[in-house]
């Protein structure tokens, strides 16, 4: 079973690298959908094993919610929001892609360095799943910084959220159900608010380039 988890954690990490490597803004949403699908798969396997071994079905329900929310609803919502905004091709990142990838590799090394000694999570040997998923959090954050347009910030935020969720899942093998539900409700609210904000920013500045927000400074 651990082998599946290892594989999936690496795939999730890889998908966040893919995200950083994306050039076009509408590709972000697709990559996010793939990453969410991997997470749903992880939760599915985990739920299946807990249903078989312990007779608990809550992780399977979580898996269903992930599929419904992260794979279907939120990407759809983002696509819709993005469709409202006039499409314009412009360079969306501050540094070029290879440099971004190298920095992301550095982040993975850093998270390996800093997370590997957390004894309570890992026991004696290093838990690579947690290292990988923690790297996803850092990469998501870095993605927020590296992109100019507001859509990048939203996706970055969702990737951070994914990373945290996966970290929790790998380190505890199933959180209390109420916590999971709480996280999902938070996330859906955040996405809705950000969708509205992006539309407003676009109306106000005729662009969703958040650099222009600095004009608001007093």
């Amino acid at each position, binding site marked *: 079973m651990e082998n599946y988890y290892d594989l999936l954690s690496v795939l999730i990490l890889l998908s966040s690298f893919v995200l950083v490597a994306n050039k076009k803004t509408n590709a972000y949403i697709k990559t996010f959908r793939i990453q969410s699908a991997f997470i749903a798969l992880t939760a599915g396997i985990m739920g299946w094993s807990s249903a078989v071994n312990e007779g608990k079905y809550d992780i399977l329900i979580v898996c269903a919610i992930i599929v419904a929310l992260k794979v279907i609803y939120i990407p759809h919502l983002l696509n819709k929001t993005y469709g409202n905004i006039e499409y314009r091709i412009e360079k969306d990142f*501050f540094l070029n892609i290879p440099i971004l990838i190298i920095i992301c590799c550095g982040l993975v090394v*850093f*998270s390996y*360095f*800093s*997370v590997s*000694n*957390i004894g309570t999570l890992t026991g004696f040997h290093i838990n690579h799943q947690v290292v990988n998923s923690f790297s996803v959090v*850092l990469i998501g*954050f*870095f993605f*927020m*910084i590296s992109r*100019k347009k507001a859509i990048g*910030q939203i996706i970055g935020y969702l990737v951070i959220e994914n990373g945290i969720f996966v970290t929790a899942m790998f380190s505890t093998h199933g959180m209390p159900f109420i916590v999971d539900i709480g996280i999902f409700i938070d996330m859906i609210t955040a996405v809705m608010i950000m969708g509205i904000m992006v539309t407003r920013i676009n109306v106000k500045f005729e662009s969703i380039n*958040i*650099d222009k*927000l*600095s*004009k*608001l*400074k007093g």
Partner: protein
Amino acid sequence: MSWLTPDYLMNWSIIAYLAAAIAAVIFYGRPHLCTLLAQSGCIIASVLGAASAFSMLLTGREKLIISQLETSIPFISIDLTLDALSAFFILILSILVCCVSIYSFGYIKHYHGKRNVSAFHILYIGFILSMFFVFSAGNAVFFFISWEIMTVISYFLVVFESEQDGNEKAGLIYIVMTHIGAAFLMIAFMIMFVFTRSFDIFGSSDAIPDFAKNLMFIFFLIGFGVKAGVVPVHIWLPYAHPAAPSNVSALMSGIMIKTAIYGLIRFVLCYLNIQDTWWGILILCIGILSAVLGVAYALMEHDIKRLLAFHSVENIGIILIGLGISFVAFAQNNGFLGSLALAASLLHTFNHTLFKGGLFLGAGSIQYAAHTRDIEKLGGLIKKMPVTAVLVLCFSLAISAIVPFNGFVSEWLTYQSLFTVIVPGQTGINIISILSIAALAMSGALAAACFVKLFGISFLGKARSEYALSANEVPASMNVGMGILAAFCLTIGIFPMFFLKLIDKVVFNISGIIVTGELQGGFLMAWYPVSVSGNSITPSAIFIASAIILICAAAVIRLIGGKASNRKYGTWDCGFGELTPRMQYTATGFTKPLRIVLRILYRPGRALKTEEGDSSYFPVSQKYSVWTEPVFEKYVYGPVLTNVKKFSLRVKLSVQTGSTHAYLVYIFITVLALMLYNRLT
């Protein structure tokens, strides 16, 4: 006689203050009744407070716990504890409050109908109560809370006449300065807690290591120094005192800045137990600096209240000189000298409360009658307001340390302790004390000159403006309030032994040594001579002698001169025509010699502006202006402020860019740094 015990009276005093405040709230809409009830409440409360403190001092109890209310918040408890030192300060607070409240009956009248009198009374009572709690606080947390309440309420009182220009700035300078001081106090209390695990003021400081004690001393000195207004942190005084209403500035200058003296004695002397000689020497040096510079700047001021504010700096300096010597002596285990100097400094604290309170009230009367504080616009007030004039003269004599008023007694005691400090074999302290004798003498002389200016220009001569012409005598209650203070000044001056014995109880409580025994008392409790250094003096004898000389002189003149007849005629004007008020000596002119002598201090400048007419021989107008530089503000505070402003602007432009990415980067770096920290520790 259970109802005469100090704690019982003290409780009733606090209740009376609260009742006065409540009365002020209830009669919000009726200013006359509001003033009457609130101020009578204060008078009753202060009489009770004075009686309580007095009986506490007379019975000579060690320590008296009035109330201890624990709250559910850790460390915060309402803890009122009296010992002789607190009782002494509550006594002087109560005496001053009683007189100021009597004065306020009349003074507040000019607010009626114009301002929210009820709010004023509530602030006024809150201010008094907070000082009350500062003096009687039994633990450091409650002390600090009361201290801050006192600061905040006095800020609101400073800006009470908010419509006048400059009051807002005055309030700002005041609150910023005192908060910097309060920050230092807080650090000192935290150090105290770290080592002793207790905030008890009366506890022992043995557990604190020497280094921390030195640090605490420095912090206490800065914290209390700001409140006391010692040079170089005095700059708030000359702004805040003139801005506040006069009865409030009497309280602020009379007793609020003394809370700092109380704090220094309480924490440095009683709690920390002087540990090194340099503590006392540092305080002594600060005292000398304040005494000389305070009076020097006072000389150049023509605004009565600013002038008096600078005199507060001077007198705090004199008090600190006494305190400094006492600390030096205690550090050298010279108990008697320490006690003598402490008594001198406490007596001067008491005296300064009386005469400075009185002087501010007098300034208030002048402002009330003439609607101006500018000395150059006054003149001839002695004919319009004779009672006020006599009272202000009394206070001026007292502050200039002239026999038979009280200022003389305490300054003389300070001199005596300075002389006694000089013993062969300790060069450094000898030189400092010789220098401080000289400085004290100089500040005394300059103070006398300053009050000759104040009294001479504003009360004598002819009226210099419409303001002075239209002045009338103030309401009787104002003069009664000042009169009581003047009576105290005179009584202490003539019968100092009685008051010294009171102070002796305080000193005995601290050091265990009785001073008055060595000062040989006797005739009318007034011989007061000292065998300390072979000098002796008796103010009452001087008083009696001068009275006899006056009577004799009058009799001789009468005998020789016979009956003289009065003939009223105008002053000879040298044939120029009528004499005008503009021909009189001005305050600027009066201080010119001193401005030239002390120009290194004042950096005076002058300019003559001429508006040319048709011919250069007939200019249309000429304007002559003279100024002195505020050295501390220009060369110390100015550069600091400019740099802080520059730095803030640079930070604002470089850190607070408004770019979302920059903020994200800050958060990201913080997260990484925290992870790294977690890994490395």
